[in-house]
């Protein structure tokens, strides 16, 4: 009897342990298929990729996540991830450990960098499925600074940028600091383009996807272009990531993403959000960053 009791206690302990494992950690491909649901993390409040419009979650990454779940014939559990101080933290919070405040852990995270050096520093996750290339550029109002404006015009005219971004770093140091006095900072990329449309700024700097999506129907009244950002990275690749123990899931999702790029599905998704699509180089499709 006593022995039985001890066994029973262990059994209960085991049950609790396994229950907490399934609720707290992301699952393998088999388990996901069995459960019929996949958890995909996207950034919270991240225009134009994953943001709320009239309370509804929308954006490029949201559409990609929906397409992935449909292709896999699974229910989609979209998890909005609040950005932490850097992407290392986000990966930990979203897919390989979870945040200490609780909340869900996702099976897959979208919109993570696809970068060899970065992946070497993050051995808890596997990066794969590069689906677009982001570029930093300028948007400007040709009526204020002319069709052929360069960065030099902003020694005389106001230029907006999202605070504490690589474009912000660039503007602060460009032309020996000569345009710093004309830099206007905003807390979100959408506020930058809103001010540009309203005529409060002659130009704006930032990721081109954000500038284009923000201008949307006013797109034709503005010009966009790249800037030579000496010493700073002006373009980078974005893809997906899973926890390192779920490579199998990564291969599966990676194949679908590669097909989405090749078949023009991603391009179409970008188009519905008013953004020109810039694909990753051909030779990257379907590979992992390590």
């Amino acid at each position, binding site marked *: 009897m006593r022995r039985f009791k001890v066994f029973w206690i262990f059994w209960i302990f085991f049950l609790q342990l396994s229950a907490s494992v399934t609720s707290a950690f992301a699952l393998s491909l088999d388990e996901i298929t069995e459960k019929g649901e996949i958890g995909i993390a996207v*950034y*919270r*409040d*991240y225009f134009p*990729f994953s943001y709320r419009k009239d309370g509804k979650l929308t954006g490029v990454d949201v559409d990609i996540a929906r397409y992935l779940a449909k292709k896999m014939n699974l229910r989609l559990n979209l998890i*909005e991830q*609040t*950005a*932490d*101080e*850097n*992407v290392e933290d*986000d990966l930990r919070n979203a897919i390989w450990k979870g945040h*200490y*405040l609780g*909340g869900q852990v996702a099976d897959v995270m979208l*919109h*993570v*960098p696809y*970068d060899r*050096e*970065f992946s070497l*520093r993050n051995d808890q996750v596997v990066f794969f499925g590069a689906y677009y290339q*982001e570029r*930093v550029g300028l948007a400007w109002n040709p009526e204020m600074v002319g069709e052929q404006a360069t960065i030099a015009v902003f020694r005389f005219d106001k230029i907006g940028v999202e*605070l*504490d*971004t*690589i474009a*912000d*770093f*660039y503007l*602060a*140091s460009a032309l020996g600091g000569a345009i*710093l*006095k*004309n*830099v*206007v*900072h905003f*807390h979100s990329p959408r506020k930058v383009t809103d001010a540009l449309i309203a005529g409060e700024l002659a130009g704006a700097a930032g*990721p081109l996807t954000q500038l284009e999506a923000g201008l949307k129907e006013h797109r034709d009244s503005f010009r966009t272009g790249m800037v030579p950002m*000496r*010493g*700073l*990275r002006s373009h*980078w690749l*974005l893809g997906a990531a899973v926890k390192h123990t779920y490579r199998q899931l990564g291969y599966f999702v990676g194949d679908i993403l590669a097909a989405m790029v090749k078949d023009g599905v991603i391009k179409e998704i970008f188009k519905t959000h008013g953004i020109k699509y810039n694909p990753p180089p051909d030779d990257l499709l379907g590979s992992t960053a390590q």
Partner: protein
Amino acid sequence: MNFIKTTLALAGGAAIAVSSMSSQAQAGVTDADIANDSKTTHQIVTNGMGRKGQRFSPLKIVNKSNVKKLLPVWSFSFGGEKQRGQESQPLIYDGVMYVTSSYSRIFAVDVKTGEELWQYDARLPDGIMPCCDVINRGAALYGDLVYFGTLDAKLVALDRKTGKVKWKKKLGDYKAGYSFTAAPFIVKGNVITGVSGGEFGIVGKVEARNAETGELVWSRPTIEGHMGMLNGKPSTMTGKLNATWPGDMWKSGGGATWLGGNYDDETDTIFYGAGNPAPWNSHLRKGDNLYAASRLAINPDNGEIKWHLQTTPWEGWDYDGVNEVVSFNAGGKKLAATADRNGFFYVMDRTNGKLQNATPFVEQISWASSIDVKTGRPNFIDSNRAGDPTKSADGKKGKAIFAVPSFLGGKNWMPMAYSQNSGLFYVPSNEWGMDLWNEPVTYKKGAAYLGAGFTIKPLFEDYIGSLKAIDPMDGSIKWELKNNAPLWAGVMTTAGGLVFTGNPEGYFMALDDATGKVLWKFQTGSGIVSQPVTWEENGEQYFAVVSGWGGAVPLWGGDVAKRIKHLNQGGSVWVFKMPK
């Protein structure tokens, strides 16, 4: 009995002619209770055991010769699945202990039995992202209300008898990164708070709200260019626009007021510290960046800044200027002292902020050679500032510098104590530095970014933590108690010649205030990163300390992790006394 106590307290309140807000003070904690908290021994109604924040008790029932007899009376668990860092200071009033805990919880506990009377758990929204653990540093009492701040930046006023919410006010938008974890405090019928926040985009402020209604009375932003508020109208601008900030960088200049402040009634001044300027890259904001990394002396009636002391102008190492300013009188002068994250111990004339002396309290400080006492400015060592990341044109990792102290500071949040018995300050400090380099391959919210890489490194093989006894008259260090793990707990001292503190290894300790010798210690079962207190009841002296390892230290890796990874979490209050 209770009636008599209240009546006496009211009489005391009338005698020192407190504010017109006394309608509030008809029941419960009065202005007189708060004003006399450093002298009265039967209760603790302020954070800091007196509003000057000296953490000195006139009690000497327990002294150097009998302290070894201390035994636990009861222990109370915060329960739940939620543990992590417990940094609170208990308050004791009318037979009840009010103590906050991790995840924005507060408990009322029967002081005699350790039995819970009520518990309030703030409902925290999804998606909050507090910077440094889920701690709370304590509550304030006034009238029949008890006040505390939450991780989603609310100030909550509860009925102290029932734990029911009387009012709740938003101190900032948690979605923008604001939270509030410091202990609020009461000055002239107002409850005073600051804000904690993410590392960029927010601007620090000190605010006064009517303690009865929660209505905002004044607001004082800490960064120049921002407009203050008084009675619903704009008052004056903080500083002078663009005097020490380039372009519009002041708009999001940081200066978070994430640690509490205190109040000196002799000079009628609120002291509050402001955190580091934002963004982290100092090359984007050349200038002193007032009033980030500064101590502010504020007029409690209108929120005007009387004077300031900026400890780290053009801050570039994450040396927040938030640490407590402790008022004391010595040599016929009204003085105040503060031990900065940057490793220097400052003593100033608290009537005007004029520096008396500034001396290093940790070893091997690398960013400045000394502080110029005439101007109050540091003599920088220019080669110890991180380079401009945009200048590393090859896109490679920048040159690493080794800066001391580390960004967690010569001293972090944990409050020091001043003894009227020994005339010394007891300062919990840490001996560590950091490798700091520009990291070109970093990402933030899915975008390439120029980050900084850092690794905290202990300076010595055998210890990081160092509790020091400092003579404020010349900055000399009288004794030092070394500790393997970093010290993260507040200190308290008594007229019995004792210094009390705890360590991450879990010991609650009593030290000889003259020699630093450990006279007694007790293992509490988890690390101590909180603020001990002492009080008296029926001729017996009681002690209380919260136990529960956490806070900012375990969140950072590097070589420090090795010394702390075996430490277990917890969440409880321990109460001690000598057996009869």
